[in-house]
């Protein structure tokens, strides 16, 4: 019995779950981590962030190789060996998840492979992957079961032509044509992978623009290039019916575009739903909202005091780095620290080409909430580094509190935006003023200078943009 009793049991081995388990162990808690896969990693490492970024890197290589022609370098037509590509990608995933598994071992976190279910507020039963069952008793548990892709009823999920993010990343084949249903980040990222591999990709989105939630000026930068990469983008259009035959999937649209078209395959990427079902929460006092999210307080504690929840299963934004941070907070709370999940800026990144990234307050949110802000923008056409990269399709913007000059939000569209946004997140978390950013020396020639120059634009003093500040 003693062997199966833990101070902390984490259900779900994704980036939130394993970060929580590791910190729990580091803080001296006897910890177990329960997950279905062979190693910790979850959707992020196995079926999400990591494999998609591996493939997007290849997509980028293909783009750059073809763009090199304009610079006088011709690599010729690329030949893609799909099997080799797939096994390289799988190798990356294997290496990474294996590494995380080793880290668990060295921390003495007991990894239990199987399907966990709460029996009550202090017991979890696990159907082991190797057969049989185990009962774990715990002082505290963290629910980190993440989320699942939402399916659409008109598409036959069992059909090999109908993909979700998981099967799309499995990269079974490169279809001649593909419809991506949903213009959010998952659809656009995976759509660009297939487009780079030669698939004619169309995107259909119900709303009036791609990437709901991001500021339009950033999305405009993407839409310009997406217009080139994708065959077609249908906005304000709904899929009303789908019929599959030997030639493909015939999809009927309604809205701004009303027609029926045939696609070799369809990628459904209309969002993700929390995975709080079938884990035995009904045997505890844990509350689940109408939308299926586990309800937690600022310390990520549920209505059942011994059970915490973090990551996708507690709510938006469904992002790995948010989950990891929440997981670490929950572990600290359980270890007796007086902390809470209270970020000022959670960066969001879309690894499209170009990338879009933002953090803190967006201009749209400011408008919606009636927060008075001033926005300073630096177009990458004025960046020397962007020019040398042949990537002047970019924009860096700062959202500033006009009263205090405090940085409230940062948005970047352009190559490497995902890496650049970290500076914005740090600046916001530190309560930096826009003048602090302006007065911080940034290395030349880099794209990071666009952040500094955007701060200079705020004062009407950008070296490379002549736009004097209007007198107010």
């Amino acid at each position, binding site marked *: 019995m003693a062997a199966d009793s833990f101070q902390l049991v984490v259900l779900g081995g994704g980036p939130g779950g394993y970060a929580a388990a590791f910190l729990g162990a580091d803080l001296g808690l006897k910890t177990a981590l329960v997950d279905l896969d062979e190693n910790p990693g979850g959707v992020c490492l196995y079926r999400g962030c990591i494999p998609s970024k591996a493939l997007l890197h290849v997509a980028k290589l293909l783009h750059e190789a073809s763009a090199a022609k304009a610079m006088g370098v011709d690599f010729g037509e690329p030949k893609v060996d799909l099997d080799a590509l797939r096994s390289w990608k799988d190798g990356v995933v294997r290496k990474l998840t294996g590494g995380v598994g080793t880290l668990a071992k060295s921390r003495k976190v007991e990894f239990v492979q199987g399907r966990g279910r709460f029996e009550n507020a202090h017991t979890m039963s696990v159907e082991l992957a190797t057969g049989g069952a185990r009962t774990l008793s715990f002082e505290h548990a963290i629910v980190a079961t993440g989320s699942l892709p939402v399916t659409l009823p008109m598409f036959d999920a069992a059909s090999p032509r109908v993909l979700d993010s998981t099967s799309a990343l499995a990269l079974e084949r490169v279809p001649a044509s593909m419809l991506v249903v949903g213009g959010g980040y998952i659809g656009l990222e995976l759509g660009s992978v297939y487009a780079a591999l030669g698939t004619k990709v169309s995107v259909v989105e119900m709303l009036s623009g791609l990437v709901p939630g991001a500021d339009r000026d950033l999305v405009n930068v993407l839409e310009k290039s997406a217009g080139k990469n994708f065959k077609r983008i249908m906005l304000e259009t709904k899929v009303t019916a789908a019929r599959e035959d030997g030639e493909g999937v015939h999809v009927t649209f309604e809205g701004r575009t009303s027609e029926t078209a045939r696609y070799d395959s369809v990628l459904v990427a209309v969002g993700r739903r929390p995975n709080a079902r079938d884990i035995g929460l009904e045997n505890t006092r844990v509350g689940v909202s109408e939308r299926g999210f586990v309800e937690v307080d600022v310390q990520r504690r549920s209505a059942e005091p011994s059970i915490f929840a973090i990551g996708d299963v507690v709510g938006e934004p469904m992002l790995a780095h948010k989950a990891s941070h929440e997981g670490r907070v929950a572990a600290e709370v359980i270890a007796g620290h007086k*902390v809470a999940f209270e970020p000022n800026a959670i960066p969001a990144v879309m690894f499209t080409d170009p990338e879009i990234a933002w953090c803190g307050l967006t201009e749209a949110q400011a408008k919606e909430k009636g927060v008075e802000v001033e926005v300073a923008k630096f177009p990458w056409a004025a960046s020397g580094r962007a020019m040398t990269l042949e990537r002047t399709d970019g924009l860096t913007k700062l959202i500033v509190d006009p009263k205090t000059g405090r940085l409230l939000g940062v948005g970047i569209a352009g190559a490497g935006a995902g890496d650049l946004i970290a500076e914005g997140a740090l600046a916001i978390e530190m*309560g930096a003023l826009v003048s602090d950013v302006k007065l911080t020396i940034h290395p030349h020639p880099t794209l990071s200078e666009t952040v500094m120059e955007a701060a200079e634009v705020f004062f009407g003093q950008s070296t490379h943009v002549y736009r004097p500040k209007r007198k107010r």
Partner: protein
Amino acid sequence: MIVEIKLPEISENVDSGDVVKVLVSTGDTVAVDQPLIELETEKAVFEVPSTAAGVVSEIRANVGDTIKVGDVIARIDTEAARGATKAAPSAEKKPVTAPEKKAAQERAPGPPQPAASGEGENEDNAESLREAVVAVAQEQGAAVPASPTVRRLARELGIEIHRVRGSGAGGRITSDDVHAFAKSIIAGARSGAAPAGAPVSGTRALPDFSRFGAFERTPMSKVRQITAQSMAAAWHAVPHVTQHDEADITALEAARKRYAPRVEAEGGKLTMTSILVKVCASALRRFPDFNASVDVAKSEIIHKQYVNIGIAVDTDRGLLVPVIRDADRKNMTLLSVEVNELAEKARNKHIMPDQLEGGCFTISNLGGIGGVGFTPIVYWPEVAILGVSRASMKPVYDGADFEPRLILPLSLSYDHRLIDGAAAARFLRWVCEAIENPILLSLEG
């Protein structure tokens, strides 16, 4: 007609209080000005009188409730007073339950009606609003300008970071700001961002008294809490020095006895305290630095152009300091009447919070009890306080002989940030001289 008795404006900065006692019951006949409840605010305990005569048809205030200005305390049937049967109101006496109240309000939509300010509904709204505000504040839009480390520090100290004022550029909150805020709470400083009643943390843990013997824990009364907070704050903020002196009151005491009946005829009591109010009021005009406050944040001195004098009154609830307004413009008879009245009110809980604020200088007379001297604490934001001990017959050498003289010991504590020792000595000497030679009051006061 049913009249609603609402909690009136109490005073500036006080908008709510706790009901400590309900003095009437449903069915009671009350007169105008008859006290209905006893209310305890941050500043005082006092009785709230009825503004109408009639029969109490409903009491909305319960002991322990916190009620706000404008909340209905009771409903009074003004018709019933004129000989209505007892049976009729008893039918109305049926307690109104919350759902009924809600239903009644739903049936009466439209512009806000005074009747709709029943405490339950209002508090619900206020509560949900507060929650909404907190929820919004926690969203990204209202991010606090403090680094994650500083935010954690605040949490560890049990401080809501939203309430800390940042000293950095753009209002950025530093760890020093958080520590200072914590200290201000501990000291109970009510200035600036420090809220009253905020969680006190960082005070040293008490020992386990059970190791030494049996003990009992009782809650501090509000007056005690306020006294504790404001005394600790004053002790913390004000560098105190106490100057001692003696006044020969032999002649004054004789005059006091002689004129006491005249003052009594006017409804006052000519006491050493009321005489000292007059003397001190004159002294404050003569020495304006003693009628001042220090604004440390702005490095400024605030000189007051009015003279209000507080009198420390020992009541069964603790120390209260009623304030006599414009003491410099009143004669001793008037002052005697007022001192008497205010002290009486303070003891009988009739004192209103606004009668306890606005003082420029305080007199604390312990002479009735005894003692040869003490060091009073300046009643911040005032800068000086006069402590009075017991007068006694002493042999005084007049150059040839020892004369028995009645000597009054006086102790002046002052804020050394503003007042230096020489100034304090001069002030107190002037007070003693004015006591000995009252003509000074007319000559220089």
